[in-house]
């Protein structure tokens, strides 16, 4: 159900500084529980934004809405200037239909906490499924690209293994390659290290570091690895109660948090590690 009137929102975002991702007054609730409360968030092209915050603050929901895994109750999300949750029709915006969402979804890739690799396919097949059957690439081309990506994440030698034969860190690296194989403009990382044993977290974070360093991808990440977030993010957003409580550069936010809740959260996290 829409709780806000979308007629006030533009049909598309234009101009020089159009953000790659733009949340405009986005609201999400489950019954009476408000998960996101009129969220405004812009992510520029090539920017790496990390979302931190206590559990239940709506961080993961932000990513899931972008991937269209969750519907929204109010507001509009734009990706690459075009509305994602809505589509232009008769001079106004209406709810996006399946076709529009499929078109828009092609701009976005996502990695999950529990990898969600297809267990009955090898690493290579996981990375070829989308390119062949969604992008329509020839098998040979898809295979070459998948092999390149698997090599990039250091999994070339395991390409013919099924996920059950791979460690968590290895599975997550394959999952990153699989998402990249779809050539998204925006990559979403949803607590990708949370399910990993401590000793393999590094192999996943290194791949993400490399992506940040070498590619102009727009990235949104939810993580509990504060040190990692501080290292690689352009901006940190601290979520609290379905809103952005505070945001800023990693140095600002970690070094000199202004809000009391941010300070509390950061000191609690510091104590835990």
């Amino acid at each position: 159900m829409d709780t806000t009137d979308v007629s006030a929102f533009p049909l598309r975002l234009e101009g020089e500084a159009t953000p790659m991702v733009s949340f405009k007054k986005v609201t999400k609730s489950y019954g009476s529980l408000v998960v996101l409360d009129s969220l405004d968030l812009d992510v520029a092209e090539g920017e790496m934004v990390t979302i931190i915050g206590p559990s239940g603050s709506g961080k993961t929901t932000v990513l899931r809405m972008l991937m269209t895994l969750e519907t929204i109750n109010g507001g509009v999300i734009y990706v690459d200037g075009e509305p994602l949750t809505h589509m232009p029709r008769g001079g106004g915006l209406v709810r996006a239909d399946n076709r529009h969402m499929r078109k828009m979804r092609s701009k976005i890739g996502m990695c999950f906490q529990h990898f969600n690799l297809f267990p009955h396919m090898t690493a290579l097949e996981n990375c070829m499924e989308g390119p062949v059957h969604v992008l329509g690439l020839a098998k040979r081309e898809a295979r070459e690209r998948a092999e390149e990506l698997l090599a990039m994440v250091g999994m070339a030698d395991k390409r013919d293994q099924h996920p059950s034969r791979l460690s968590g860190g290895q599975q997550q690296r394959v999952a990153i390659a699989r998402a990249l194989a779809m050539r998204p403009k925006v990559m979403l990382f949803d607590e990708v290290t949370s399910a990993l044993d401590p000793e393999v977290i590094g192999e996943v974070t290194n791949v993400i570091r490399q992506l940040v360093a070498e590619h102009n991808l727009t990235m949104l990440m939810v993580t509990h690895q504060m040190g990692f977030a501080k290292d690689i993010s352009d901006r940190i957003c601290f979520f609290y109660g379905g809103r952005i409580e505070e945001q800023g550069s990693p140095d600002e936010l970690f070094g000199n948090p202004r809000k009391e809740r941010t300070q509390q959260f950061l000191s609690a996290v510091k104590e835990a590690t």
Partner: protein
Amino acid sequence: MFDWRWDFTFQILPRLIVATGNTLLAAGLGYAIAVVLGLALVLAQRTPFRPLTVVVREAVEFIRSTPLVLQIFFVFYVGPQFGIRLSPWTAGMIAIGLHYAAYLSEVYRGGLECVPKGQWEAAKSLNLSTARTYFRVILPQALPPSLAGMGNYLVGIFKDTPMLSVIGVAELMHTANAIGSETYRFLEPFTLVGIIFLCISLPTAALIRLFEAWVRRKLGMG
């Protein structure tokens, strides 16, 4: 009083073996119908089109709540009143196929529910079409947890084929009964029928377990 005649036994054996062929054919055909139709029934219940899901859901419940033999009679004897005249074989295959399709659809439903939500989400994040998601991602994973139930119903349909004798399908039971009527000897034919069923059911159950393990390995999920 226990008057078992071996010469009679060997005399009727060829006829029963031919009938066994019919029983296997009936079970095989019926099962093939049930496997495909059952899938259609479960998928129909998962479409977003509400009226279809409700109708199919109720139909499945109806079939599962009424006796097979009634359904066989219904298709064979009531059909002609609506101008649908079917041979015993056709009527029998429709009835038994439909009956087991309803049961198998429930087995598939259980199998589908075993597939983690994350698999659907991954398929969506890769922008796979609904058909591709089902046939390449979800159903292969729903298969291993469904196999045990599917195997049970394979043995079940085989053991239920004697019900087709009521409309004159010349399967094992029908043939044994005919031999009995002709010769007034029922001990040997019915005993043989029991032994034949046992000889087929037991190894089938074992083979299904082997097949299950093989499928899991084949899908890399072993």
